[in-house]
């Protein structure tokens, strides 16, 4: 290529935008399929249906209800449990203990994190304690709890508090520390101090982290509870869901064992999708702090 062709000036180009009325489409509703596939709840339900089909097919292929009962058998056992076996009472017994433990854990976590952000010694204490106790499985404390508090609800609440406290504390504290310097300065500029500063600035600014801590705390508590009930069974009255599973296993009523596990899963799904998802939707997602 010689110099002259290289330096030929490129033509200048002018466009002429047309008026928007002459477009075919400016705004058009989505087709039914696009609309439906845009609903995350529906897509996830589809995943559940897929799993259910795989379960049913495998169970029929195996044809051994003692090892792996079919979906139909499991649902049958679930309904039977609810109607006659007092499964609902057992679920309620579990959830009641869980809520007590969760509430106490949250309250302690709130107190500790507030202490940790207002004083330096509080932060040192919190960081050391979370580093020590967060890796310690709650269930490992159960034998001790049984000696200290006896065979009853108090022991369960103790291990639940342990499982909730550190997860929530860790997340809330790191959320507080992540609040941007600008927002902190804005809060102090308003003349906010102490409690009103924490409530008006830090908590909403760290809410995404606090909510994720609460979710983790909930999941930890739920597993710990079921495991604890499996280990020492009946605490008071009828016992909980874990005890139900244990009891039915001893009776070789495997569909009921599956029904108990299914109940554990269903409650987890409901809490995650209904309660926490809704909380997120109306707070952090609306504020553009989480996608």
């Amino acid at each position, binding site marked *: 290529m010689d110099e002259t062709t290289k330096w030929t000036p490129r033509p200048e180009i002018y466009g002429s935008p047309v008026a928007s009325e002459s477009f075919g489409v400016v705004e058009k509703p989505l087709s039914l399929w696009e609309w439906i596939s845009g609903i995350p709840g529906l897509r996830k339900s589809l995943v559940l249906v897929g799993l259910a089909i795989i379960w049913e097919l495998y169970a029929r292929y195996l044809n051994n209800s003692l090892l792996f009962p079919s979906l139909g058998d499991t649902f049958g056992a679930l309904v039977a449990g609810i109607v006659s076996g007092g499964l609902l009472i057992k679920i309620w017994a579990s959830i009641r203990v869980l809520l007590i433990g969760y509430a106490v854990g949250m309250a302690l976590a709130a107190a500790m994190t507030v202490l940790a952000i207002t004083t330096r010694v509080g932060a040192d204490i919190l960081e050391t304690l979370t580093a020590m106790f967060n890796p310690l499985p709650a269930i490992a404390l159960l034998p001790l709890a049984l000696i200290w508090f006896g065979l009853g609800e108090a022991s369960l609440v103790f291990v639940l508090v342990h499982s909730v406290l550190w997860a929530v504390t860790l997340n809330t504290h790191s959320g507080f520390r992540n609040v941007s310097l600008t927002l902190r*300065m*804005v809060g*102090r500029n*308003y*003349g*906010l101090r102490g409690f*009103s500063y924490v409530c008006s600035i830090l908590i909403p600014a760290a809410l995404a982290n606090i909510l994720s801590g609460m979710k983790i705390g909930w999941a930890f508590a739920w597993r710990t509870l079921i495991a604890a009930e499996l280990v020492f069974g009946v605490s008071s009255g009828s016992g909980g869901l874990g005890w139900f599973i244990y009891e039915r296993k001893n009776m070789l009523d495997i569909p009921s064992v599956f029904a108990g596990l299914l109940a554990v899963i269903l409650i987890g799904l409901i809490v995650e999708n209904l309660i926490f998802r809704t909380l997120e939707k109306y*707070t952090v997602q609306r504020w553009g*702090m989480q996608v």
Partner: protein
Amino acid sequence: MAELVGGAPLLEVTGVTLRYKTARHLITATYKVSFQVLSGDRFILLGPSGCGKSTLLKAVGGYLAPTEGSIRLRGREIRGPGPDRMMVFQEFDQLLPWKTICENVAFPLWKSGKCGRREAREKAMEYIDKVNLSQFAGNYPHTLSGGMKQRVAIARGMAMEPDILLMDEPFAALDALTRRKMQDELLRLWEDTRFTVLFVTHSIPEAIRIGSRILLLSPHPGQVKAELNSLRLDCDDGVLRKGLEDRINDLLFVDRVEETEAPHG
């Protein structure tokens, strides 16, 4: 040439030395800086980066206590941040993301006990209207552009009717066009209410455009180099503007030229 001369100085900064600690060093940000801001001043702190102008503004804001000297507002020593000195920051995340635009402006009004909730709302709407954002009053901040967020922050600061409005390079993160528009808008607002503003910038044209009086600071640590009058607001004499710009440029950068030339000489 000053356009408005009040009575006693509103803000008195006398012999202020500011030091702060980083992990390894003790840094002197400013050394014995003195200046006085009168009521209605558009007072500019101008200097290259590292001259401690932002640190000085934070000290006036009450976030940092001087190691030497005093900062007095209306004759009273400044102790800690407070709503009588509203800050406008450079960062776009200075609005509370969990509050709508209207709530963001109204919140400090009722939280500081300045007025009741309803009155705060009305006042907030009035100032949001002043910065032409009425139609976005119900929006959350994340749906606004950077320039709009800064306008909300300015409205929030002005609605509080503080003794002095502190602005820390509020337009530095904006694009050139928006920046120019915001400067004009700030001046329009000033002509409207004649508030007192202490404004930090590193841009000489911005200082001349916005300020009524300009304090030049030298870097490492910041010391007063000069305190100049800016041009009148209605001055559109390009030659005068250029002249002042060159004068400030010489004052700020004459040392640097000497420094770089010294080894050869």
